[in-house]
């Protein structure tokens, strides 16, 4: 660096002369800093970063590099997540016996209710399949589910993204649907061995093919960047859309399995400047409150069997 001499000398001036004998002392700054000038370094750095930005954004060439680098950052992510993890752990240990009994009873009741509903559901599914067989359009939803936990990290400011504590070692893949207990949350956009990044459906760059559960009207739900808002695109002025309608995935994008709840319509407005109806929906999933997420594999039974035997995940729960 060219500015070195004066800079270092006025700091070192009162302690020592530039004498070769004393210059061995560690307290003295080097007087002449060698190497290219800051301007040259800056130009190189700027060209490098612009190249990286373009490569990362336009060409997606850095997928493998990124996942390797994120893997290197895993210790840091783990350490930052640790306090929140320990607080939850401590809370779990400090729960009183009465509270645990109450929660156990509540879960037991919920389990009974769900089981009762499941009996009906199985009969309905069988009936549905028979009817679809008659129409010649039967499909089989072989699905496998893995539970992962959201890490307490703030990544990608101004974006709706979260990091979860399962990665490609558990068989996760890019494009995989992510659900919570209530509804669709998003999809995996990047994986490494131990962690994955999930793009939530409310991110401004995420769109999701949906249909209205009541009448099957298809649309696309686009994220707005706000955590509680989705917008339906291209709904004609005369479409049958009502406040309170449930939106479910239509399966058109071939990424999300069909029939999962997504959002509930909150506002239907006819803006004079908009050639379409403005429809705002609120996600059913607790996007900013969920701790645990479900990862779904949708595939035909043969593939599913192979995947299960290949990548034995830690926690699997077969779906009916």
């Amino acid at each position, binding site marked *: 660096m060219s500015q*070195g001499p004066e800079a270092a000398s006025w700091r070192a001036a009162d302690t020592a002369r530039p004498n070769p004998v004393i210059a061995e002392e*560690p307290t003295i700054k080097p007087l002449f800093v060698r190497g290219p000038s800051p301007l040259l*370094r800056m130009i190189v750095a700027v060209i490098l970063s612009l190249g*990286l930005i373009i490569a990362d954004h336009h060409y997606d060439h850095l997928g493998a590099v990124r996942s390797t680098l994120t893997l290197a950052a895993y210790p840091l992510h783990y350490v*930052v997540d640790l306090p929140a993890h320990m607080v939850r752990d401590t809370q779990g240990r400090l729960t009183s016996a009465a509270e645990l009994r109450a929660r156990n009873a509540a879960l037991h009741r919920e389990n009974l209710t769900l089981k009762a509903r499941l009996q009906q559901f199985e009969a309905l599914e069988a009936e549905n399949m028979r009817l679809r067989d008659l129409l010649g359009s039967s499909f089989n939803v072989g699905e496998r589910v893995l539970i992962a936990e959201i890490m307490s990290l*703030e990544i*990608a*400011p*101004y974006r709706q993204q979260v990091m979860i504590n399962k990665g490609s070692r558990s068989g996760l893949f890019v494009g995989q649907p992510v659900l919570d207990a209530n509804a669709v949350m998003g999809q995996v956009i990047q994986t490494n061995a131990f962690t994955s990044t999930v793009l939530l459906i409310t991110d401004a*760059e995420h769109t999701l093919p949906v249909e209205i559960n009541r009448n099957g009207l298809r649309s696309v739900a686009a994220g707005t960047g706000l955590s509680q808002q989705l917008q339906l695109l291209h709904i004609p002025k005369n479409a049958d859309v009502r406040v309170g309608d449930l939106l479910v995935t239509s399966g058109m994008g071939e990424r999300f399995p069909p029939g999962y709840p997504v959002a509930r319509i909150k506002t239907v407005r006819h803006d004079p400047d908009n050639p379409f109806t403005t429809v705002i929906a609120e996600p059913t999933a607790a996007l900013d409150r969920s701790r645990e997420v479900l990862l779904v594999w949708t595939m035909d039974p043969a593939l599913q069997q192979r995947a299960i035997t290949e990548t034995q995940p830690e926690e699997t729960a077969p779906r009916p």
Partner: protein
Amino acid sequence: MSESRPRGSWLIGLSLLTAFCLTILPMPVEFEALRPQWVALVVVFWSLHTPERAGVFSAFGAGLALDVVSGTLLGQHALTLSLLAYLVVELHQRIRIFPMWQQTLFVWVLLLAERLLTLWVLGATGQPMPGLSYWLPTFLGLILWPWLSALLGDLGRRAGTL
């Protein structure tokens, strides 16, 4: 540079690591918009006081690491931080003899430049645009700079980095 390795370089690394942790530490939603630009502040400090060691390329490396840690576009922070470090390294003789209030204002301008450059990258890559609260962290940086400067200065003198 390589023959006489200066002392206390570990402090630079440690302060950067702490800044990374503070950047991704979860905070309540209300304070989310107020998170200071920790890494930018630390990079400015070290390129101001040890320009012969923590210059443009170190800032570039720190920016790349921040991009990886916080999951932003690769090169986004590397670009802004290396430009920041360049400005500081070029002007460090003048800034160091400024009175503290003047230095703080200069650092504030640097933080604003960092935000502006990031905004430009976000716009050029078609990412969603943040709202007005995007500029709030610079004011927090304005308040934090004298304290951070004193703290890192003290630690640096003890560790022999300065």
